[in-house]
């Protein structure tokens, strides 16, 4: 059931009133049933994988709780009769058991994701290199599996670290894992932030409903007016890499930057708005990312929950792990600077390789991830050089021109890296990138070139106006949340804005018979 389908709007139209009509103590059950319907629509196979995740994660987390409790009782009982060393040994014994449970549960859940994500690619590689019969062609990702698996693993690790207690009711955990708005493209949520809210009773609030409606409408606006329109041109440009070279690639970079932003943030707007309709605050996934002054800052403002997940559960544990500490100590003879940098550099590269791999099995994603890591590390190494430059030209960084330059530089840099996301092979992506420096064909671009991409001038006009509106709103957001300001002007004003959004979608949006409003780009990950 696509967010952009009439079936989904009907689903919401039934669900929201029902949620507030039933007694508060069963609201969470209504949500859980809605999740089951949503997941069921996507297919039985996906539902089975999700049930496996819920059951294994629930059992493991409860196991951790039981082991912690037994550990405390055992160690307390040993206090008077055993030495400190013996008590430590007993603690380590429980720790080992917990680790075994954790590894087993991770193997099952990461294993499912791994097989579905890379099974087909491994089958193709095996057939090509080892001449085995091809296998795994029918292995495809099921809806939301990349997102709910990560959320579930986050919950599992939080209970393992004793940051949060295990949820006692398996159905309440199921509600967190399967909450339907998050299955389309995240965000990757944490149980301590979302789980408790989902299970709490909620009263209807007209203002919150209106606020959610504004956010949802703005999400659809971006998706149907800008993203789905520009995606047509981006797909046409990517499909013929031998034809569309040089300046076409530059146009493609800019169109894809706008398209991806409108698509991904639009989807998250819809998710957050739906959350508000159920009285739930879903985490923000973006913070005006295209205003970042460096690529590392950009990654703290784009797909925030994925970055936070990797930081919390992979980057930090890896950086301070025993092997990294040993490596750091052994590399001391190469100098203090090297020994201090080594763990953080290795962890950065590995996390970026994993981030790339999370996006898909194609080599392009892996190269994209590693290149992001390399750029971040190079920027870090060049900091002293920047500092010397700024000391030589003091006051330069305070100017609006310099800030504008850093923002544009960041957008161009990350758009260049994103070419790897557009093309089928690494070679095609690099070839397209370098063609920008060897082929100057602006004449061809504007002499009918961009009109051959499936969009009319009217389409480009509508998309360009949409991008300007998104930019203006991002600028206005710097003074505070816009919806709050709209709502502060009263219900009539808010309803007028809502109607204006819906009206412009109806006039300028790409939808309806004969046009298939697309799935969200991030849904394929």
């Amino acid at each position, binding site marked *: 059931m696509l967010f952009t389908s009439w079936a989904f709007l009907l689903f919401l139209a039934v669900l929201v009133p029902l949620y507030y009509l039933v007694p508060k103590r069963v609201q969470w059950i209504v949500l859980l049933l809605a999740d089951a319907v949503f997941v069921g629509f996507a297919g039985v196979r996906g539902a089975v994988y999700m049930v496996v995740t819920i059951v294994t994660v629930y059992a493991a987390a409860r196991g951790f709780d039981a082991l912690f409790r037994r550990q405390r009782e055992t160690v307390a009982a040993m206090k008077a009769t055993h030495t400190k060393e013996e008590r430590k040994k007993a603690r380590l014994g429980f720790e080992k058991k917990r680790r075994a449970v954790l590894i087993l549960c991770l193997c099952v859940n990461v294993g499912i994701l791994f097989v579905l994500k890379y099974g087909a690619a491994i089958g193709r590689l095996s057939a090509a290199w080892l001449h085995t019969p091809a296998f795994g062609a029918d292995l495809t990702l099921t809806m939301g599996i990349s997102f709910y698996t990560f959320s579930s693993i986050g919950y599992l690790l939080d209970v393992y670290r004793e940051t949060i207690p295990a949820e006692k009711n398996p159905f309440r955990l199921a509600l967190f894992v399967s909450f339907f708005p998050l299955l389309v493209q995240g965000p990757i949520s944490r149980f301590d932030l979302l789980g408790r809210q989902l299970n709490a009773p909620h009263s209807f609030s007209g203002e919150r409903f209106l606020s959610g409606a504004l956010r949802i409408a703005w999400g659809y606006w971006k998706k149907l007016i800008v993203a789905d329109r520009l995606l047509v041109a981006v797909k046409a440009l990517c499909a013929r890499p031998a034809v569309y070279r040089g300046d076409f690639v530059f146009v493609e970079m800019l169109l894809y930057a706008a398209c991806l932003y409108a698509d991904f943030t639009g989807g998250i707007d819809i998710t957050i708005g739906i959350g508000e309709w159920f009285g739930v605050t879903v985490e923000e996934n973006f913070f005006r990312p295209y205003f970042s002054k460096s690529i590392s800052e950009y990654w703290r403002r784009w797909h925030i929950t994925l970055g936070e997940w990797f930081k919390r559960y992979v980057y*930090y544990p890896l950086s301070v792990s025993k092997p990294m500490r040993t490596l750091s100590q052994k590399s001391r003879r190469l100098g203090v600077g090297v020994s*201090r940098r080594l763990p953080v550099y290795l962890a950065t590269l590995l996390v970026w390789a994993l981030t790339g791999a999370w996006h898909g099995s194609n080599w392009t994603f892996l190269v994209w991830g590693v290149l992001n890591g390399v750029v971040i590390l190079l920027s870090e190494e060049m900091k002293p050089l920047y500092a010397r430059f700024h000391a030589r030209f003091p006051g330069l960084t305070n100017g609006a021109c310099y800030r504008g330059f850093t923002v544009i530089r960041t957008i161009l840099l990350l758009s260049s890296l994103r070419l790897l996301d557009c093309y089928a092979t690494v070679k095609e992506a690099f070839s397209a990138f370098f063609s920008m420096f060897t082929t100057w064909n602006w004449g061809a671009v504007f002499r009918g070139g961009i009109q051959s991409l499936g969009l009319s001038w009217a389409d480009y006009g509508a998309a360009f106006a949409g991008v300007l509106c998104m930019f203006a709103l991002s600028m206005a957001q710097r003074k505070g949340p816009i919806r709050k300001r709209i709502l502060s002007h009263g219900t009539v004003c808010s309803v007028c804005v809502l109607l204006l959004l819906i009206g412009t979608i109806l006039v300028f949006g790409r939808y309806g018979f004969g046009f298939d409003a697309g799935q969200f780009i991030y849904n394929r990950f």
Partner: protein
Amino acid sequence: MEALLEILKELHPETDFETEEALVDRGVLVSFDIVMLITRIEEEFDVVIPAKDITPEHFNSAKALYALIEQLQEQDD
């Protein structure tokens, strides 16, 4: 505390670590800095900071970070 402030100053000489209370939330200390900082703290104070303690609450101010170091030192004893 003096030793910790010195380490922090090495990382970001321009920041007033004695008064700043939102080092992570305001983006003064990013993940890269935090790992470098942990390496330096472990060398200086002979403690091991486990991954579960790497949270914004512990790294938002020099005071909170010092409290964590003291707590870890006590646990070691």
